[in-house]
């Protein structure tokens, strides 16, 4: 039961973070350039993502499970460590927080000044921006969902988690018509980074022949372990940053 819940939760949180970022781009372009071309761009991106899922799904079933676990474990680990490193640096104040309001304002400004180009009766700037934004963020969602779901045979659950995130984020965006800047994005990325890294260690370990103590329950232990390590790294970085910012006292001679 534990891995199933964690798969749904992990896919939901990771997808929600990516979808919030895509929503900011879509809203900014839609509010300034009109919705028709943006809607076509979003639709085209969903079709492209659907085609990718249709191609990837059957291909994954052809790969032996041990090899799949090693590959998925390694991908989740490198991907999870990227998220976790950035979240730790942001939590410690070394790197600026991701600010959806600022990104929205910048996108609106750029959209207002972009020259109108019409192709296939579409505002090409609005179409390509919406298409690329949704496709690139969606690609990350697809890879997280496929990675989370494929090795444990929970692809349906992972897809359900991502689908729930899509409904929640799209509904919230339609209601507020503003970027979802109140979403605690860094906390979510911190959590997702810990989950991706823990799943990566778990499946990568199983793939190379490790037998985890406590079987599936070891996942909870790994999540706890990486949470403690990450929080310790944040505390250590904060301390070092505070020391570095403390002005050196100047000695004045009498």
């Amino acid at each position, binding site marked *: 039961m534990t891995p199933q819940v964690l798969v749904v939760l992990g896919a939901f949180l990771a997808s929600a973070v990516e979808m919030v970022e895509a929503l900011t781009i879509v809203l900014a372009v839609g509010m300034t350039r009109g919705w028709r071309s943006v809607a076509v761009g979003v639709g085209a991106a969903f079709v492209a993502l659907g085609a990718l899922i249709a191609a990837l799904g059957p291909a994954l079933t052809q790969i032996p499970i041990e090899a799949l676990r090693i590959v998925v474990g390694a991908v989740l680990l490198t991907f999870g460590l990227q998220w976790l490193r950035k979240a730790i640096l942001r939590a410690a104040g070394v790197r600026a927080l991701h600010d959806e309001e600022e990104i929205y304002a910048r996108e609106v400004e750029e959209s207002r000044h972009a020259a109108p180009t019409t192709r296939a009766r579409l505002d090409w700037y609005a179409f390509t921006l919406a298409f690329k934004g949704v496709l690139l963020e969606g690609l990350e969602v697809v890879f997280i969902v496929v990675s989370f779901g494929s090795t444990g045979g929970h692809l349906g659950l992972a897809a359900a988690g991502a689908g729930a995130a899509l409904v929640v984020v799209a509904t919230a965006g339609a209601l507020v018509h503003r970027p979802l800047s109140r979403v605690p994005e860094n906390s979510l990325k911190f959590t997702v980074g810990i989950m991706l*890294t823990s799943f990566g260690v778990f499946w990568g370990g199983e793939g190379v022949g490790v037998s985890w103590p406590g079987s599936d329950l070891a996942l909870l232990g790994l999540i706890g372990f990486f949470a403690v390590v990450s929080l310790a790294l944040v505390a250590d970085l904060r301390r070092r940053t505070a020391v570095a910012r403390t002005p050196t006292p100047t000695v004045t001679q009498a």
Partner: protein
Amino acid sequence: MGWLGRFARFWYDFLVGDDWLAAVGVGVALGATALLADGHNPWWLLPVAVATVLAVSVRRAAASATPRPIDAGPSADR
């Protein structure tokens, strides 16, 4: 850069990101665990190795980051 270069760059950024050493560390950790798993059950090795890779990667990134002024407002950053 042609489309092939951009395609390769996208996947490199997507999977490896801005610290190639961390990706290498993950590969080495998995390889070492696989070697030791022949006859043993080194379940502790991978978590410890990955935590070490994370700590080194964070330190490297912090060392190369430009310190932000204390009063600086947030800026957009992926």
